[in-house]
């Protein structure tokens, strides 16, 4: 097949109507950018959730006369418990000093150590879902000698909620982006097909296969989507560059975002051409 010649024809079509080509690429870029931003957001919320989940443990604070060895044994026998660590009153104070850093001298005014001893319960990963974690915390809090428990379960519930909302947004936006990119590209390619009616007529008369007739239009749609995706990626990088100084923990998986943009940009561009061709050429 005459790939080279037909690609040159496609570039002639593009240069002949540069403004629609760039308009269409620009709209595709805006759509892909919108989705990319949400994708980066989702990835980061997900990452935060995972980090929080990794650190999840139940702190069980002991009454003053509790027998920590007996309690450790009992807790170890509960399902989902990986490890139990005893933190004495002194240990707790030491940790607090480390946490406070240079402000730790405010502790010097204390007459006696107000912190309770506690058992730090590490949990198996599959017990970190909000419901299971809640049940386990409940069981521990009912043991004799436990004054109070704390697990950060509420934070996890909140993160799970945020993730499902954001994921819902992602799907919705992806849908809008799909429709918009395909629509704008197909409109632009349709205009080219109409402008090339004479060439198409001659191609058909002289016996060009339909693949040959369609190829330049697929090339055109592909490049619209590709250019859109590259612009979207570059803008994402620039935005991230500015935001990252304010929000240092934000992470940006460059390669994933690049691959994602190029993949969807080109697929949607080709899809737009496909729709244009099936609407105009029988």
């Amino acid at each position, binding site marked *: 097949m*005459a790939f080279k010649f037909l690609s040159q024809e496609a570039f002639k079509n593009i240069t002949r109507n540069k403004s629609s080509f760039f308009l269409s690429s620009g709209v595709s870029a805006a759509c892909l950018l919108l989705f990319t931003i949400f994708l980066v957001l989702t990835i980061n919320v997900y990452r935060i959730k995972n980090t929080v989940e990794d650190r999840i443990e139940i702190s069980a604070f002991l009454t003053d006369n509790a027998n920590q060895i007996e309690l450790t044994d009992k807790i170890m026998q509960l399902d989902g418990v990986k490890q139990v660590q005893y933190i004495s009153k002194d240990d707790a104070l030491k940790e607090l000093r480390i946490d406070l850093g240079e402000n730790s001298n405010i502790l010097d005014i204390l007459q006696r150590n107000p912190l309770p001893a506690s058992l730090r319960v590490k949990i198996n990963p599959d017990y970190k879902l909000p419901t299971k974690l809640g049940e386990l915390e409940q069981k521990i809090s009912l043991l004799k000698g436990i004054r109070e428990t704390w697990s950060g379960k509420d934070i996890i519930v909140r993160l799970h909620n945020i993730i499902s909302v954001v994921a819902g947004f992602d799907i919705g936006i992806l849908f809008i982006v799909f429709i918009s990119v395909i629509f704008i590209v197909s409109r632009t390619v349709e205009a080219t097909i109409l402008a090339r009616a*004479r*060439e198409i007529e001659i191609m058909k*008369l*002289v*016996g060009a*296969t339909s693949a040959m007739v369609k190829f330049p239009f697929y090339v055109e749609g592909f490049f619209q989507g590709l250019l859109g995706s590259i612009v979207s990626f570059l803008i994402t990088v620039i935005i991230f560059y500015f935001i990252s100084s304010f929000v240092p923990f934000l992470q940006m998986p460059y390669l994933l975002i690049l691959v994602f943009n190029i993949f969807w940009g080109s697929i949607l561009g080709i899809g737009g051409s496909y729709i244009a061709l099936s609407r105009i050429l029988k």
Partner: protein
Amino acid sequence: MINFEHVLKVFKNSWTALYDINLKITSGEFIFLVGPTGAGKSTILKLIYHAEKPNSGKLNVLDYNLHDHIDDNKVAELRRKIGIVFQDFKLLNERTVYENIEFVLHVTGTRPQLIPEIIISSLNLVGLANRKDFFPYQLSGGEQQKVAIARALAKEPKILLADEPTGNIDYKGSAEILSLLKTINYNGTTIIMATHDNVLAETSKKRIVSLENGKILSDGV
């Protein structure tokens, strides 16, 4: 090479353009299709290059059965063996003579390294090699039609269909086109030329198929 047997062509608006056409054309012939406007000449040519399908009867062109269903790639293959020229030339105005022929050769899958030579030799055949860098609007009607013929010949077709090729051209130009077609026929290409110009056909001493209202009135030299 081409065989119509009891071919009927009815258009979608239920207009019958051809009734019971029986026509056998053998390799190397030169045939005129004559008749007034609306007689069905163009329709016969369209059936041959499968721009239209017969409603009934049998039609064979170069061993393709055009009365059965035939897929698009087969149609394209058939058309690559047929050259077609029209009254309005169908040249691309923003391309030079050379590029017009080049376009057709590329899209029909000709090996790129052969293309320049083919273009020059087909332009030589019609005597317009010196016009290769002209645009169609810089040429006379007769010259434009010769370019269209050169473009059709570039693919070395077995059959050349010409639909009113002299319709837009003055008397002198018409005579030149006709003598060019005769030369091409002499070199072995089958030629079917539709024209409403009876005189032009009769002075040529070739087979004439005369049509009126979709029926063949006479067929002979």
